[in-house]
């Protein structure tokens, strides 16, 4: 393995790596060793066009670009010398000659690499008097992105992204030299399932998303680490938060999961959090048959009364439980305990399905389908079958996926049930048949863990608080369990304790809980182990 020395630090690296890659792999790039760069991106091919990454390499008379200089064993690199600093100043000065400097009205201000490096390496006085290059402003590139040609520094990151990641090739450099511009082919739009990533990788304010631009200045945002729950991939994200509101999702690098990308649908799914159709109250169906808003406690009481009556007359066997693949491992573990304590044999998880691709997007459109399976929850089709065959009188359902997965022809199939209790984040068709609806928390509002399609257990953090009373599914089940007097349910829900209990009871999760998964998650010991162990007990549990 070649070894190189950078500013006196000795770094080992793999054969064939560039200086920048070696620094990035060692976790030192911009984190101990500053080599500013525009065109290089860890997940794109090398361009070598911006020249900002020049460093001094012993034995080379001229400065070398760190992004395209392959490490040789024994290489000695200096990134802090006066020559290097002068080179950076030169690059920044040249870029600024034609930059419009419209920072006050630029939405990138505050997270702009040109601003940052101009601050670090900019010269104080402009040495040119010529007018700046005029080019197109506010070019509509497609459904998601707006482009400002004047601000573009031609690093070609966006072009390479479209060529290499979604492989859709919408963007290109047209023209030559000082007349080069980024454009789409005449009549073509930048329109692919990953298009909004170009706004993240654009170092300046040239590419901005229509969704986020001008919503808020970025310095008011706090980034909270979290997960996208749009599908089973579990892309790592930052939630941009201000005033207890989520303004955007942005991908967070995790080379084991989503590299540095996320899909547009997932990115825009933050809108669900504050959507107008969020359930803000509990609802209870009154004696006249109409569904009315109710206090949370009252609704728990009503649900418990109904279930107790059924257990009293027919036993718990006529109660079915449907879990949500959106719920956390902790929620689902509590669900399983709830079902076990109730003593019914009919339960399963409803997993919504959709399109997949070979990049990130998975067919299972919920974040924790694999977690549900690892916890031994079977498919909710069993529940649907038993409802249809008339063996079920009551349903406790987490989320509304049970309606959307095609397991039921329509919601009317549930109209004949004596009791339907729904725990959900948003209003749904369930309002036509449910007897009690209990509001729950969105993934961005609770702590816990989620297991992605590859069996990686990842940490979820509460980034915002709902403005009304809503609890995680596990807590609601715990309250309901207590109201029913179920053994082991005391109405408390300490997610950290539940996570640890889960890790202790499930072999697949051994040692894997909320506090141990770290930033990048941990893979289940054996995603199928739990399922296999539990098989003798029956198809569902």
């Amino acid at each position, binding site marked *: 393995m070649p070894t190189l020395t950078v500013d006196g630090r000795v770094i080992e690296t793999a054969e064939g790596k560039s200086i920048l890659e070696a620094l990035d792999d060692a976790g030192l790039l911009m984190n101990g060793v500053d080599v500013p760069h525009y065109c290089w991106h860890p997940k794109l091919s090398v361009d070598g066009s911006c020249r900002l990454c020049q460093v001094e390499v012993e034995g080379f008379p001229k400065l070398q670009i760190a992004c395209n200089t392959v490490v040789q064993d024994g290489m000695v690199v200096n990134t802090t010398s006066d020559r290097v600093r002068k080179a950076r100043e030169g690059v920044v000065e040249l870029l600024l000659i034609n930059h419009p400097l419209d920072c006050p009205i630029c939405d990138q201000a505050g997270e702009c690499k040109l601003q940052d490096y101009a601050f670090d390496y900019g010269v104080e006085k402009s040495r040119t008097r010529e007018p700046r290059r005029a080019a197109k402003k506010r070019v509509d590139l497609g459904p998601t992105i707006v482009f400002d040609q004047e601000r573009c520094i031609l690093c070609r990151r966006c072009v390479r992204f479209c060529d290499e990641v979604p492989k859709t*090739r*919408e*963007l*290109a*450099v*047209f*023209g*030559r030299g000082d007349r080069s511009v980024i454009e789409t*082919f*005449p*009549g*073509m739009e930048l329109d692919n399932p990953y298009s909004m990533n170009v706004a993240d990788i654009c170092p300046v304010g040239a590419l901005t998303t229509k969704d986020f631009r001008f919503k808020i200045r970025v310095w008011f945002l706090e980034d909270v680490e979290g997960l996208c729950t749009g599908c089973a991939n579990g892309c790592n994200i930052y939630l941009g938060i201000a005033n207890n509101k989520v303004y955007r999702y942005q991908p967070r690098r995790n080379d084991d999961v989503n590299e540095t990308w996320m899909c547009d649908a997932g990115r825009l799914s933050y809108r669900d959090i504050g959507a107008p159709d969020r359930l803000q109250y509990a609802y209870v169906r009154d004696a006249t048959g109409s569904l009315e808003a109710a206090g949370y406690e009252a609704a728990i009481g009503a649900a418990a009364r109904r279930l107790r009556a059924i257990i009293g007359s027919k036993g718990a066997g006529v109660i079915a439980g449907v879990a949500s693949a959106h719920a956390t491992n902790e929620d689902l573990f509590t669900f399983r305990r709830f079902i076990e304590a109730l003593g019914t044999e009919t339960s399963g998880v409803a997993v919504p399905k959709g399109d997949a691709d070979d990049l990130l997007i998975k067919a299972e459109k919920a974040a924790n389908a694999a977690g549900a399976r690892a916890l031994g929850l079977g498919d909710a089709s069993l529940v649907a079958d038993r409802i249809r065959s008339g063996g079920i009188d009551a349903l406790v359902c987490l989320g509304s996926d049970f309606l959307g997965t095609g397991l039921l022809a329509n919601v009317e199939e549930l109209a004949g049930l004596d009791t339907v209790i729904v725990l959900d984040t948003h209003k749904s068709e369930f309002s036509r048949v449910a007897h009690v609806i209990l509001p729950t928390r969105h993934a961005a509002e609770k702590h816990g863990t989620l297991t992605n399609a590859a069996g990686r257990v990842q940490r979820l953090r509460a980034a915002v608080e709902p403005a009304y009373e809503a609890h995680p599914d596990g807590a609601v089940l715990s309250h309901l369990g207590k109201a029913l007097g179920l053994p082991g349910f005391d109405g408390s829900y300490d997610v950290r304790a539940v996570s640890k209990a889960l890790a202790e009871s499930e072999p697949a999760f051994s040692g894997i809980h909320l506090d141990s998964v770290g930033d990048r998650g941990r893979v289940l010991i054996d995603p199928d182990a739990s399922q296999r162990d539990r098989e003798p007990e029956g198809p569902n549990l």
Partner: protein
Amino acid sequence: MISTGTRSKIEAEMERYPQKRGALLPALYLVQAEHGYVSSDTVRELAEIMGLHPVEVMEVVTFYNLFFDRPQPRHHASVCTNLPCSLRGARVLLAQLEEHVGSKVGEPTDDGRLVLGHEECLGACAFAPMMRVDDAYHEDLDLEHAKSILDALE
């Protein structure tokens, strides 16, 4: 539409290169010779023939000065204004020609007959000043000679 004749010439060019895209420049010359310019529809067609992405073809079209992406006047007359030609009066000559044809550099004449341009070194310094009219060099120019060349253009 690229004619079948041009199409088969392009295909013949493609045979001559280890990678088909190597034939892109000759192919563009053929297409431009047929249409006078390379429209975006033509770019799509050519990309299809050559198995390239339209954007790759467009990048090349816009990179080179001698490919045009929109309809052109019938003739291009470009005076070299690099150092040796300028020393021999090329800039003055160009200004006089602008006056003579009644149109500035880069602006086609109203009848669509001609557009004047200036050019960097065309490698004919020994015969400065010079201009290129379409595919022909005209050297050792003086104003009268240059005017007569332009006047003779259809």
